[in-house]
């Protein structure tokens, strides 16, 4: 061992983070050591308080500090719209778009028999209960455009069959600002199949 144990311990913990390899973990640990001791204390304090200070929103399962998250407790959000997303980063991306003023439901994953993820591993039961209780006018399925995302959307569709709710799926196809010639055939094919009419005879 070429480094003191305290540094080794920190870097081996940092190396477990996604996208951080052994060498960058070591660099991060050495960097923290170079800062004022107050920084390391603030960092460790922030880490220590993370779990006790964060819980799941009991309505939408987004991360929250209280029983309800900031979005669910905001009276200006449109409660007639419910958007179902795979995970928190997807919710944040939709928020950044500024287009959406409704509420969310976070599944915390997608169905994947290959990885052993079944309906019970997601917040699907809560979703159905919520729709029955809150009766939104529209449920938007914003799971990703992949085999797993499509399977999850399709399963939710079968769960919500016979319920008085408009169920929609986000569009997929040509991204804005893209030249058609640079698109892969799969995306282009999808965009063609999902075309919409501008004029009718």
């Amino acid at each position, binding site marked *: 061992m070429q480094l003191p144990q305290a540094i080794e311990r920190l870097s081996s913990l940092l190396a477990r983070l996604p996208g951080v390899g052994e060498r960058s973990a070591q660099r991060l640990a050495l960097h923290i050591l170079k800062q004022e001791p107050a920084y390391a204390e603030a960092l460790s304090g922030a880490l220590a308080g993370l779990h006790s200070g964060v819980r799941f929103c009991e309505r939408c399962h987004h991360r929250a500090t209280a029983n309800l998250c900031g979005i669910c407790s905001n009276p200006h959000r449109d409660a007639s719209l419910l958007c179902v997303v795979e995970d928190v980063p997807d919710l944040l991306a939709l928020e950044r778009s500024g287009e959406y003023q409704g509420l969310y439901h976070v599944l915390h994953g997608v*169905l*994947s*028999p*290959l990885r052993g993820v*079944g*309906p019970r591993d997601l917040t699907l039961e809560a979703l159905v209960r919520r729709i029955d209780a809150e009766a939104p006018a529209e449920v938007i399925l914003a799971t990703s455009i992949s*085999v*797993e995302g*499509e*399977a999850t959307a*399709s*399963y939710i569709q*079968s*769960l919500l069959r016979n319920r008085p709710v408009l169920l929609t799926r986000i569009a997929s196809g040509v991204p804005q600002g893209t030249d058609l010639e640079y698109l*892969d*055939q*799969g995306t282009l*094919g999808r965009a063609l199949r999902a075309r919409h009419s501008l004029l009718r005879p």
Partner: protein
Amino acid sequence: MYIGRLHAEHFRNLDTLEWWPHRHFNLVTGQNGQGKTNLLEAISVVAGLRSFRSARLQDCVQFGQERATVAVQAERQGVRCDLAVQFGASARKLFVDGKPTAGVSTYLGKLVAVLFTAADLQLPHEEPEARRKYLDRVVFNHEPAHLGDLRQYERVLASRNSLLRQARLGPVDPQLIDVYDGLLAQHGARIIARRAAVLARFAPVLSEVFARIAAPGLSAEIAYAPRGVKKADRDVADLQDELLGALRERRDRDLAMGHTTRGPHRDDVGLWIGGRPAQLHASQGQCRALVLALKIAEIRSLEASLGEPPILLMDDVSSELDAERNRALMTYLEELGGQVFLTTTDARFIRVAAPRQVFAVHAGALTPGAVLEGAAQGES
């Protein structure tokens, strides 16, 4: 499209190789075990990043060496292109025109090589999978989107099979299996429809090529034999409904088997000679003529989509064909006008009049012979 220069290092028994192949015919001769096939393999690896002999590229690294390199200077429609691949213990590295390239998609397609080996002659007698692969290659040549659709279908299929197996261990929501039935039917119908559409255009080409190389009066047909739908040449929506019905009907059986027994992954390609199934009724010579016709038709479909002939790699094919089929094959290759690499233990098997060069392979080393100008064709 042709290879002007090939450089290989530590590739199987080719220690260090510098090769300036002939623009048209390259006859690679040598005794067995000297490295003839290794040369063709090196070309197919640098073109397609896969070996036709082993599943892992690492197996192509010379014993005792860390890594192998294959590099070519190629020309496609008059434009020079340098490709190189390095592989071995560490991660594979790709270079296009000397620049490292991370994406396989920018690399693949720059050099296209078609391989024909003696093993291909068994195609009518192989399992359906071999004929499906042949069909999918032809479909891909016409419509590249096919590959992505196949990958997606395989993922849905693996998911459904995994679910069927989970159902043996404990209860699985039938609605969940419904979901994968729906996706499988949706993706599967597109594959079936595309295979049927391409085959409809391809079948006459095959019949025509076969008529030229087989005995007079004998005809050959290729037909799609789907399992899961009765007729393939229909609307995608109809195919989807029918496939979905077949999956539902087979649900209990699939659950018992632990895998999916209907769908395009079980389809076959029917090969017929003189109106009868080739694998049952045709003679060996007829079957070989049929495979030859299939291969030539595949090359033609590729030529049509590339705008020029692909590079052809023929591994010891001539020794398996009789004199008449050999003549038909060589005549076709001469007409095609592309670059051809043929291996043989005996150059007398190969009767070509086109410009050519013989290369003798001994213990992994190459000795170029004289360039022979064609009798009919000149070369600039």
